[in-house]
């Protein structure tokens, strides 16, 4: 059997397989994932799942019936370790020695947590949070623990910190940059999150790097910071980013720069190979090489990749969107903030409800809304239409954003 081989078993993989069938592809489709679980959703791992309100079975992306009904051969628990690629097609080999031939290949290999390289990083009680196995380990380690240090003030770290704080743990967040979420949001949003988490009892340490994790008899006891102080902890969670899995792509000679380089059709440099999801670095017109780690990107790029495999090219034009649920704070983001020169804040009396709109030369780039879903939606819909919301009107909270006439954006 030849056909289409999808390497990886996450959100992009499942969407790619589903879209291939929707596009009428009737060739064999095989999906090989390294994890032993049926493909599942990752976002709840730092929230409901960590809080014990969801079980692995609750996270499944699709039922087994779906794979059967669509004739998708789902292989879980096998890691592809080698790929040999010819001019048209090739063979993949897994860690169990299985060999799968293909004539088209889709890489949806995702990524793994960036590892902390300090003394003590391998002590018991030091956790990462990327997949179900990580989350189950962390959950199993919670009973009786009283304090946690979260290393990294990004989305995963802050979501988990909020969840663990709500469970009563003494929680400290340590961030090397001088503000939270520094890579993705404006300072006004960073400052909000610092205050909001402090109000909920989280100790937030900014501009602070970790020198070592201290332990006793193999078990973590605290985190020693660069200023010499040690924060006691009986749990440590490291959330310092994701590293794309590009080994296989590199091995078959594909261009990789922090991710597998693909064009706006999700095509790699090889005519038989596409890639989608967290593992990619995408060349987008006018934006250069973009790395996005999100459910939206995984699913939208998977649709594009499936279309390319089906021979009906459709460019990636989706408006990026993202959400982060940190306790009772729902952050919804649309667009990309890269290169903004102005921000407009829509805020009222409630400090935990506001929206920040980002502009470059008067043109709307993105919006970040905290507990203001209507504002988020107005921004997303304007961006999807290629329109802008006039910045001078956007700050007026008395006018719903969606009622402000959008202005077309001249082509540049």
């Amino acid at each position: 059997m030849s056909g289409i081989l999808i390497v990886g078993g996450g959100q992009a993989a499942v969407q790619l397989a589903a879209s291939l069938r929707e596009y009428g592809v009737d060739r064999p489709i095989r999906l090989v994932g390294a994890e032993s679980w049926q493909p599942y959703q990752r976002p709840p791992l730092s929230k409901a799942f960590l809080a014990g309100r969801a079980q692995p079975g609750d996270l499944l992306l699709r039922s087994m019936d779906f794979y059967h009904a669509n004739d998708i051969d789902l292989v879980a628990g096998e890691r592809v370790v080698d790929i040999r690629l010819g001019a048209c097609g090739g063979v993949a080999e897994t860690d169990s020695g299985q060999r799968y031939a293909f004539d088209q290949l889709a890489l949806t290999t995702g990524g793994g947590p960036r590892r902390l390289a300090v003394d003590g990083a391998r002590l018991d009680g030091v956790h990462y949070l990327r997949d179900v196995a990580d989350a189950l380990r962390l959950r199993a380690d919670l009973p009786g623990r009283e304090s946690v240090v979260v290393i990294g003030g990004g989305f995963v770290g802050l979501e988990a910190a909020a969840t663990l704080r709500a469970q009563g743990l003494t929680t400290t967040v340590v961030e090397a940059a001088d503000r939270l979420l520094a890579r993705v949001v404006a300072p006004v949003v960073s400052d909000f999150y610092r205050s909001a988490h402090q109000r909920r009892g989280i100790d937030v340490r900014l501009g602070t790097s970790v020198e070592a994790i201290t332990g006793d008899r193999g078990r973590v006891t605290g985190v020693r910071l660069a200023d010499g102080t040690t924060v006691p902890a009986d749990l440590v969670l490291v959330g310092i980013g994701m590293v794309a899995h590009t080994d296989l792509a590199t091995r078959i000679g594909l261009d990789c720069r922090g991710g597998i380089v693909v064009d706006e059709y999700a095509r790699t440099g090889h005519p038989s190979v596409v890639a989608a999801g967290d593992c990619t670095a995408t060349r987008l017109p006018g934006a250069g090489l973009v790395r996005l780690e999100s459910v939206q990107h995984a699913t939208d790029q998977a649709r594009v990749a499936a279309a390319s495999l089906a021979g009906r090219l459709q460019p990636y034009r989706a408006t990026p969107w993202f959400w982060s649920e940190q306790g009772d704070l729902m952050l919804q983001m649309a667009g990309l903030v890269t290169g903004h020169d102005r921000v407009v804040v829509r805020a009222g009396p409630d400090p935990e409800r506001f929206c920040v709109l980002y502009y470059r030369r008067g043109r709307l780039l993105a919006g970040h809304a905290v507990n203001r879903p209507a504002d988020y939606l107005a921004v997303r819909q304007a961006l999807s239409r290629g329109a802008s919301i006039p910045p001078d009107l956007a700050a007026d909270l008395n006018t719903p954003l969606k009622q402000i006439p959008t202005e077309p954006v001249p082509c540049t």
Partner: protein
Amino acid sequence: MPKVFYTDADGVVRAIDGEVGDTVMELAVRNGVPGIVAECGGACVCATCHVYVRADFGDRLPPMDEQEDDMLDGAAAPRRPESRLSCQLTLTAELDGLSVTTPATQL
């Protein structure tokens, strides 16, 4: 065991037995009911699990919060008075026999 009837845009009806505590979205996804995408997995941030609930069930449904109300405005298919996001509809014994119609598109 509450039963839910899902009618797709072509009029095909699927009857699925759920458990109290399931959401109408989860039950559909788990059983491969077409017409519900649920891209965000139930966080109420994507509006791709939009359904039209048969009117006589309206007063038995959980109330709509602001998040759902606002996100419904972003659904791909037209919003109607009986529109809900199915990830916000948790099944109870009283909802046995719930009947929902999925729109022609969610994206």
